[in-house]
């Protein structure tokens, strides 16, 4: 069931990415939806699962870019694992905490990708620091928004479930 949920989340990320690109050509430069999925999953604390999700999401992202295939696969694997390990040590429940973690993860992912590109390509093109910051901030905000929406949805569905149980007991 969890695997299906993850596949659906990655497929949804791809859909949002394509819709975003069709609406605004600078979408991929500003937001990384795949990374947000990886980090939000990593916050669950299962490092093995986060590693695999990071690898899969990163490789899918590599399919849509012109760089060496495996660049984002490598970066997202590291990001997924580190996020899960961080979630094991810290309790991250506040939306601002999620914003900070996703923003940091985006900066880390781009740093890893840039270092790998510098190592692998003779005269690579690099992203501008401004856009790295914009992307980190946008990813953080998107991650926080999804986290808040998911928490609210979980809370309301829990309340509905409790209400139903109470009605059954009363009846």
């Amino acid at each position, binding site marked *: 069931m969890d695997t299906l949920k993850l596949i659906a989340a990655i497929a949804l990320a791809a859909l949002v990415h*394509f819709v975003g690109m069709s609406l605004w050509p600078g979408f991929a430069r500003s937001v990384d939806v795949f990374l947000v999925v990886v980090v939000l999953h990593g916050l669950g604390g299962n490092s093995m699962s986060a590693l695999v999700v990071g690898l899969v999401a990163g490789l899918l992202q590599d399919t*849509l870019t012109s760089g*060496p295939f495996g660049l984002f696969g490598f970066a997202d694997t590291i990001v997924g694992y580190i996020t899960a390990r961080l979630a094991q040590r810290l309790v991250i429940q506040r939306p601002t905490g999620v914003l900070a973690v996703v923003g940091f993860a985006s900066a880390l992912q781009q740093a890893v990708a840039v270092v790998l590109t510098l190592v692998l390509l003779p005269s690579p093109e690099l992203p501008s620091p401004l856009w790295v910051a914009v992307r980190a901030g946008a990813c953080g905000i998107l991650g926080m928004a999804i986290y808040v929406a998911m928490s609210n949805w979980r809370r309301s569905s829990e309340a509905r479930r409790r209400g139903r149980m109470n009605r059954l007991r009363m009846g």
Partner: protein
Amino acid sequence: MNERRTGWVLIVVLVGQLVFLAIQGGRAGETRAEKLGLRLLGPLARAVAAIPRSVADARQDMKLRNSLMDENRHLKREVESLRLRLLRLSDVQGEMLRLGDAVRYGTPPAGQIRAVDVVYVDYASWLRSLVVYTGNVPARKNQPVLSADGLVGRVVTFSGAYAKVQLVTDRAAGVGGMILRNRRQGVVRGGGGRGSSALELDYVPLQADVREGDQVLTAGIDGVYPRGIPVGTIVKVEGGGQLFHKIQLAPAVDFGALDQVYLLDYDALSPAMKENGPRGHS
């Protein structure tokens, strides 16, 4: 699974990926995983691309209906003038072929073009790319991709009905270029920027007469692109190094307006040359 074992798995996965990246040598290559990814994401990208296109088509149809009569009249006049021009050009072509025969000059094959739909384009980020839907006839690696305005790039990976294209503005792309006015050749590379700094023309010596506004075409010397496709226009010329000009080009193609491109069936090198290199040809 305990954390220690996960740590080992992480190390194995990362080392495996590093080895894989090193084997590729930094080039955009063809791997099974990439082909699988393209096959999975391609249909989704196509479905998403089809929605705004159909909305835009419907809106355009409404607009067109109003001006259809005017356009029809205008097109009829244009067809007449083009027919006259075609007659004149067929005379010139016949003459050129006769002269070519006289000096035994073999003109390079022109190649067939095939229209394909763009399903995904990212021309703004630093790892830019384009994905096209090729239908039943798959693309071929290194196949040139054009638009009505000029050169778009070349196919780097294909899987099923989808192909990934390396844009000519990509930092890793290189095209044999030629200044139309004086036939001076050089290498066109992605400049890493957008708009006027999207392309650079390298290896044009300082002695060469280069002016802003000069048009640059493909030179047909790189074994990928045929000669004569517009690549861009020179927008800035500086005395860069000690030997060569530093030239910036504005691309001929507006990558933001691409919804359909053309695949060119063109093979610059014979199969024997491809297998054995230049020696195999002799």
